[in-house]
């Protein structure tokens, strides 16, 4: 009995020793690599913040409205953006290198999948960013236009425009990633088709009189007051 227990304990300790000797050195190595990567990332960020100027990129960020979109205060600068990007890229590279030290099937597979997917993820991210920017821009256009043209519920009009554009961007990103492609595509077709049918029905049946009345009133309003008052502003 005691001999059996001793045997079991020896086996357990042996396994533990084996695991420690197998995994601890790579774990330590991975930690050292990660620490090194972290230090390198911090240094790179510090250096870039001092060396990189990116005046033209700053201008692009400001003029495109991305500066305010990403950072509400509008103080986003190319230097900060580039430094942060470099920081995270070095950290990511360090993490992947650290993982590769283990040299197991799982880690190798993880790294390979990640490296393969990374460019696609980046492109999908860009698609979403562009979609977000466009949705904000066109949503705001719709809002200002609706207010100035006295269209009912301007915020809803703007919200609908934003939602639609963002949805298109999500469909495009999902399609690029080959992720639930058919689901998104079907949802997209259903949404657009539904919208078209709804608008057609609304205009053709229920809202026909209302729309006619609205346009008649608007035309009358324009005729009555707009030409005189508008021209006289200058």
């Amino acid at each position, binding site marked *: 009995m005691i001999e059996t227990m001793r045997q079991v304990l020896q086996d357990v300790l042996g396994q533990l020793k084996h695991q420690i000797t197998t995994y601890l050195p790579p774990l330590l190595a991975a930690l050292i690599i990660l620490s090194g990567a972290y230090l390198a990332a911090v240094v790179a960020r510090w250096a870039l913040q001092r060396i990189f100027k990116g005046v033209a990129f700053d201008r692009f960020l400001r003029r495109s*409205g991305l500066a305010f979109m990403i950072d509400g205060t509008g103080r986003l600068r190319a230097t900060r953006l580039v430094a942060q990007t470099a920081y995270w890229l070095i950290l990511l590279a360090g993490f992947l290198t650290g993982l590769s030290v283990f040299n197991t099937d799982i880690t190798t597979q993880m790294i390979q999948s990640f490296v393969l997917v990374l460019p696609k993820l980046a492109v999908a991210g860009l698609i979403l960013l562009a979609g977000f920017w466009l949705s904000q*821009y066109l949503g705001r256009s719709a809002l*200002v236009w609706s*207010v100035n043209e006295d269209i009912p519920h301007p915020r809803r009009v703007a919200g609908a425009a934003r939602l639609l554009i963002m949805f298109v961007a999500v469909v495009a990103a999902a399609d690029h990633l080959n992720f639930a492609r058919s689901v998104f595509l079907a949802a997209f077709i259903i949404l657009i088709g539904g919208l078209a049918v709804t608008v057609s029905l609304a205009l053709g049946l229920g809202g026909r009189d209302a729309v006619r009345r609205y346009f008649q009133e608007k035309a009358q309003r*324009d005729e009555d007051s707009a030409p*005189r*008052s*508008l021209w006289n*502003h200058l």
Partner: protein
Amino acid sequence: MATAIVSGEALRASEAIGEADIVVGIPSFNNARTIAHVTAAACAGLAKYFPHLRSVIINSDGGSTDGTPEAVLSARLEDARLLLLATPLSGVHRLSFPYHGIPGKGSAFRLIFQMAARLNAKACAVVDSDLRSITPEWFDLLLRPILGAGFDFVAPYYHRHKYDGTITNSIVYPLTRALYGLRVRQPIGGEFGVSQRLIARYLERDDWDTDVARYGIDIWMTTIAIAEGYRVCQSFLGAKLHDAKDPGSDLSAMLHQVVGSVFLLMEEYQDVWMGRAESRPADLFGFRFDVGLDPVEVNLERMLTAFRHGCEDLAEVWSLALAPPTHEAIRELARGAGAFHMDDALWARVVMDFACAHRQRRIGRGHLLRSLTPLYLARVASFVIETRSMVSAEVEDRIEQLCQCFENDKPYLESRWARRSKS
């Protein structure tokens, strides 16, 4: 240097004429109804006041489909001769050809100035083609200060109905005056006299293809003349009565173009206006007299409704455009019951905040400028309520008060503007 847009037809015409002392430019677009009268007034004015000088009248037409160029050419010289029996009309040429480039008043002006430069003209006057109140004297008043007194730029000075020209009265005049320190009452009047050296300066510039070539051309010319230190004066032309036109144009587009041009020029000339305090009057030529004016209809309720709706729906845009205290004051104004009143100080802050937001590109510039519409309508409504029972002179005093307010508050603009420079 601006790209030459003088066509072969215009070249041949200018070569045939050789040289001229005076050029009168009349940009037009579908003005068949009035342009013959304007052309006849120009013929008569040149013949009566400058008979010894060689003059050319140029109509630059933007592709009219109502027979405007034909109306110019068929403007009956006999009538002019009848008007001026003692003065021969020889030396007065009339040319009519469509201008090229982007359709707009700016392109028409560019063509006129290039022709004036080719003809080596000493002075050039430009007048709108929709004027009903133009007389031959206008050409004397626009050209004499240049030819006789050495001025470079003559701005018009009119009597207008108290509710006419509200963009001028509430934004362009107070802001331009506060910025550049010269009181030019009608900076976007539409009629100007320009000297040879200022024409050369205009043609040197390379921004003819920008938005300035649309509604902005008037303020562009005036601002360059003032900011670059050219000699600027005004001439009293009487009443400005023009054809009711452009019914399709919308107010927000107008604000976009006019106010956008003022803001763009603010950026270009910030070194000129920063630190420039107070203002001085510009010299005024002509004999001032009171005139009868066309009434102007104003729909107050519509303006106030537009403002209140704007306040509800445009909060996300205004929160980016306006400083928090200004935005809060606007919200308070929209909530307030009783008589509506937007005071001068608040309006000045609104305009200055928009100028800074425009420079900083906090949001798309088009969105920003178009979102000014409800605020502008609120200001106009407040002005109409306040001046309902006032006569012209009293209204002019009110506008003077507004201008003083802009001038007094200029340090606020400078501090916000400078803050933007640093960030």
